[in-house]
């Protein structure tokens, strides 16, 4: 059995960023995930915001990594060919007494090193014509942005794998034991050996940490439910709109996404079960009421989907990024809740440069390529008005998904990459096929047949999401 230098548990955004940073060095890295795709849980279901960093308590890991991470997004999204836009955020005060809180937040921003501006009601209304006309003022943070979270993780892992990291999916870790100078990590399918282990298991990070030693922190998952609206018209909001933060989090926001949809949410409910992704009408009604208070004209008849995500809230109220108490060869990266996504590039760099490097000797690779192979999309070609690539390449003008204008070429390209989608949902995340107003009503049969053909299996074996989630149950009329 090949022994790895570093084994990362969890291929969410944190694990992906650590893996990509490790890929710069000449060592053997394994990246494990229990799901059948990378970024399948918390990284997949969140607000898709690159927070500015005005909100975390100064001096915390959250404040530090948020601000550092935010500054890294332009370059990293360019390298990974991921949609990202610094649209800025507005934290709005709807009552006079909230203006004082805005001032406190502005002070906090200054301490955190985040550029912000206090706006009066008129300025806010000018920037956001659909805001509640009772608005009293807002805190404007121009560095906040929106990002395609799905492809951020997928492309980061793709880039890591292209640079030598080995990805193992469908591997649920069941035990971790230290032998002389290496760890034995057992999963439900295989046994791995590695000198060093990094725990980036998201909502399950405390369970993984406890496999090695008792810990003084615990993950208490917090469920958040969201509405996704169709991208029918631009301008409902032009920035990320936040209410004032509370102890439960940043509150229910209204934002556009990089694909032009609108996202409204999340709720915030403590939930013992980190695998609970159920949605509930009462909770959603509440989300709707609170969001409508900020933006009264949200067209909820344009909702195309609701979903729930789980945030790994930590009892320490901060990110846990540290060596295990007894062994520097085991690193915990836990409690990466909001602002975890924006922090991830900085966390990845810190973990590798400040925690791994002192322990393992790291030699830089000469041939590390920070870029993924360029992605081509008909939809982007439309926006650019440049159809050269589309016209010169087969399959890029054969549309499979009508709503999102996803072509066969884009689907085959996703399947041809180093982190190929194994399910309809994984393909949808990468290409947006099935993400539009009909929610795959038209394209899903074609997508299933394309996946079946690509993997050389029966359409009955194609899963919607994880293992054991088939779409079709029986072939009829087998003929002769």
């Amino acid at each position, binding site marked *: 059995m090949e022994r790895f230098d570093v084994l990362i548990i969890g291929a969410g955004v944190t694990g992906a960023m650590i893996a990509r940073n490790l890929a710069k060095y000449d060592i053997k890295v394994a990246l494990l995930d229990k799901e059948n795709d990378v970024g399948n849980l918390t990284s997949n279901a969140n607000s898709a915001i690159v927070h500015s960093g005005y909100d975390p308590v100064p001096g915390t890991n959250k404040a530090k990594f948020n601000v550092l991470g935010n500054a890294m997004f332009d370059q990293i999204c360019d390298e990974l060919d991921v949609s990202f836009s610094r649209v800025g955020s507005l934290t709005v005060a709807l009552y006079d007494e909230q203006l004082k809180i805005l001032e406190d937040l502005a002070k906090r921003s200054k301490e955190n090193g985040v550029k912000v501006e206090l706006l009066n009601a008129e300025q806010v209304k000018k920037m956001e014509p659909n805001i509640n006309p009772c608005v009293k003022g807002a805190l404007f943070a121009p560095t906040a942005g929106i990002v395609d979270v799905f492809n951020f993780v997928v492309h980061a892992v793709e880039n890591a794998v292209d640079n030598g990291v080995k990805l193992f999916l469908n591997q649920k870790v069941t035990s971790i034991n230290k032998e002389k100078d290496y760890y034995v990590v057992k999963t439900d399918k295989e046994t791995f050996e590695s000198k060093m282990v990094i725990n980036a298991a998201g909502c399950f990070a405390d369970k993984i940490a406890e496999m090695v030693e008792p810990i003084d922190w615990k993950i208490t998952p917090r469920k958040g439910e969201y509405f996704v609206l169709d991208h029918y018209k631009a301008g409902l909001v032009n920035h990320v709109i936040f209410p004032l933060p509370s102890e439960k989090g940043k509150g229910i926001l209204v934002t556009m996404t990089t694909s032009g949809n609108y996202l409204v949410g999340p709720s915030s409910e403590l939930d013992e079960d980190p695998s609970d992704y159920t949605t509930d009408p009462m909770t959603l009604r509440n989300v709707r009421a609170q969001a409508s208070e900020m933006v009264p004209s949200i067209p909820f008849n344009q909702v195309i989907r609701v979903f729930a995500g789980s945030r790994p809230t930590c009892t320490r109220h901060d990110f846990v990024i540290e060596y295990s108490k007894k062994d520097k060869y085991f690193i915990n990266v836990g409690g990466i809740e909001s602002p975890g996504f924006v922090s991830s590039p900085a966390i990845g760099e810190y973990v590798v440069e400040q925690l791994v490097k002192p322990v393992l000797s790291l030699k830089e690779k000469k041939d590390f390529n920070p870029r993924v192979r360029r992605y081509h999309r008909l939809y982007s070609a439309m926006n650019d008005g440049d159809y050269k690539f589309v016209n010169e390449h087969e399959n890029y003008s054969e549309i499979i998904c009508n709503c999102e204008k996803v072509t066969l070429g884009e689907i085959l390209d996703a399947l041809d990459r180093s982190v190929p989608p194994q399910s309809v949902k994984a393909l949808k995340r990468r290409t947006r096929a099935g993400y539009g107003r009909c929610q795959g009503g038209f394209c899903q049969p074609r997508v299933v*047949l394309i996946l079946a*053909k690509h993997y050389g299996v029966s*359409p009955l074996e194609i899963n919607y999401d994880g293992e054991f989630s088939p779409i079709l149950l029986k072939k*009829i*009329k*087998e*003929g*002769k």
Partner: protein
Amino acid sequence: MKEFTCIICPRGCRLTVDDNMNVTGNTCPRGKQYAISELTNPVRTITSSVRVNNRDDLLVSVKTSGSIPKGKIFEVMDEINKLSVSAPTRIGDIVKKDILGLGVDILITKNID
């Protein structure tokens, strides 16, 4: 007295047949005919499909050329499920003559080139 919903056209009239086979509620003569048939020998036309041998994951639609007794529907389906054809197909092509000796054929209803 028996009541039916007429299935002859989208109007879906509520038909009543009394013990002397008098039909009321129909708006056309076909309704009357349907009601009497429904009491004496209910029949249905069946539509289904058969697999196309020389195409991946493709079926071609078929129908019975006439009505069959309601009680024979699933037996006819079992027979249809055993059939297959090769493309091209033309509307009206006979896939199976006189299915189960019922005097009706199984006809192709779709052109596949």
